[in-house]
């Protein structure tokens, strides 16, 4: 049976057509995506990478809720200008506790992967409440409501930590038990700033460079 005849069969048989589409469209994913899910280098933390604590995780969830990621990337590419502008380029191992990943696709604002430690907490607070106070030409939105809401109101922190533990994040029982207390008295903006200040700080750049030179590309 030649190709044309086979094709005539598919053309006249709905079941074959469905099967054909499924098969042909699955190949790419099976060869390209599936192996990456088992690639250890993509799921092994760097030496300085740790799980988010209760406050950082809450800050991160606020970041997601407000859609900061639609304007800010968290991915410094290995290019001279980017490393100059933002800091050491991003490594896969730094993101193994990121569910979901927040690399972004658009830089309406600057990259934030290495924002930790760049500004003071106060600068961030003023900036988040009204960006134009510190950067007059800024087109970033203001987030006044973050100062009005308690951080403890951002979902059930213990349930979150338990779910993440089931996904393999090493939280101890004590971490989970103490979580609500750690959020007490904090506003949403405080938690968000704690998150921003720890972003990208887990990287020992020299050690990572050495490792790259050794085994990397």
């Amino acid at each position, binding site marked *: 049976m030649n190709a044309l005849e086979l094709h005539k069969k598919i053309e006249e048989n709905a079941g074959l057509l469905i099967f054909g589409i499924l098969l042909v469209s699955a190949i790419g994913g099976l060869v*390209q995506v599936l192996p990456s899910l088992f690639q250890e280098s993509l799921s092994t933390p760097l030496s300085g990478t740790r799980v988010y604590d209760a406050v950082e995780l809450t800050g991160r969830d606020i970041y997601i809720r*407000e859609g900061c990621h639609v304007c800010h990337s968290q991915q410094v590419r290995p290019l*001279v200008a980017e490393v*100059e502008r933002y800091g050491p380029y*991003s490594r896969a191992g730094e993101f193994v506790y990121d569910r979901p990943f927040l690399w972004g696709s658009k830089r309406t604002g600057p990259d934030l992967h290495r924002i930790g430690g760049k500004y003071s907490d106060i600068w961030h607070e003023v900036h988040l409440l009204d960006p134009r106070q510190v950067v007059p030409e800024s*087109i970033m939105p203001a987030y*006044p409501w973050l100062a009005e809401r308690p951080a403890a109101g951002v979902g059930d922190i213990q349930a*979150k930590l338990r779910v993440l533990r089931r996904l393999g994040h090493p939280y101890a029982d004590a971490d989970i038990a103490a979580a609500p207390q750690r959020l007490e008295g904090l506003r949403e903006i405080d938690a968000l700033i704690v998150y921003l200040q720890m972003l990208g700080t887990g990287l020992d750049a020299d050690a990572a460079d050495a490792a790259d030179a050794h085994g990397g590309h």
Partner: protein
Amino acid sequence: MQRQNPEIYEDRVVVRLVQFSVLWAVLGMAAGVWVAAEFLWPTLDFGQFWLSFGRLRPLHTNAVIFGFGVSALMATGFYSVQRTSHVRLFLPGLAWFCCYAWQLVVLLGGLSLLAGWTSSKEYAELEWPFDIAIALIWVCFGIVFFGTIARRRIRPIYISNWFYGGLIIVIAMLHIVNSLALPVTLDKSYSLYAGAQDAIVQWWYGHNAVGFLLTGGFLGMLYYFLPKQADQPIWSYRLSVVAFWAFTYSYIWAGPHHLHYNAVPEWVQSTAMVMSLVLLAPSWATLINGVMTVSKAWAKLKRDPALKFIVLSLAFYGLATFEGPMMAIRSVNVVSHFTDWTIGHVHSGALGWNAMVTYGTFYFLVPRLVGAELHSTRLANLHFVLALAGTLLYILAMWASGVSQGLLWLSVDRLGELSFGFRDIMAGMRPYYGLRLVAGLLFWGGTLLMAYNLFMTLRGRRTVAVSPPPVAEPWRLERGAAGIATERARA
């Protein structure tokens, strides 16, 4: 009514879906215009969390893609699968369920985005309760669609159905795999994948949602309605078949071109780049097929605004599918990634291709559904001019700002020092954002004209009852469900 005539096409659900689609076009693009204005006046959210850019932008993309786009695809899919199968829709009740359940998901999903429920994954933002609902509705869509094909009275399965079929099957696969997550509460879940792996899975989904929905799904629309409007058969049926399989095979690989120079393995990026270049071939094969098909109908093109929209959409389809592979080359992507260039590319596809081919189809379809003339051809021609001007202006403005951003961000002097600060570059883009806003208003204004025009065409009219014409010999198929239909007619 139906008992006297057991076999008329179920077209009322088509009319309803067209109405919803137009409604979402108006609302979703209004959100787009609003978001575009926030680039110029960031205080336009008035301190209201639900008008904040980070929530309104996903609302825009969800309303246009899933509200406007998918409703249009369901409408035209249901319409064309009946005509190409010569049989009434399988389980019309289920089709009505798909219609209303989908609108409910888009509406409540949109509100949930404003409330801050989001998975953050682009084009898959809706949280897990919606993901489950979407999967169920999608399966129902598939049952109606493939059920109709299974009961068809004509041997070959026409090419448009393959593309709609690809839309249904592949999107189901992508959606289910990418949405896997452990729920915490109703409004929050954590992805089953983390970090770089999450990124690879997400862009496998994200790119192919573009591929099999915004490109493939709408190609289904094109393959049915272009030959109908041009009154010509497809120029080369065989070419369309080859292009279909090449498209289905190669698109799936291209996702990681969204992750060039990101922290994912280089071989993954390379396969994506190569496959994106390969994609040019089936994409342009389709373009050539379309252009050759209309080339015999130039006379009609001058008079008929519906055909004009469709032909123009082909041009922008060609542009977007040429630009895309170029942007997938790593050395080009270094400049375009993260900039407004991507936004320009998106909207040359979204406005120039998706919206235009749909507009052309609606101008053709709606009068036919109610057996009347279009309310106003003049308004439709005016719409055409507005849509063309809006799209061109949008793309040009974003090319200018995108290429500037890309080059200025990367520019370093001889000592390796950055030449420009981020904030200065940002401030310099203001004029382009102004042009984009004007472009959006033009395009949205045109869409409003269409909404009015179609409303006046439909007003006070009933959907005409159409029966399947008999199928001529070598192609007639008498078996199974078609037989059942005959028996019911006798009873």
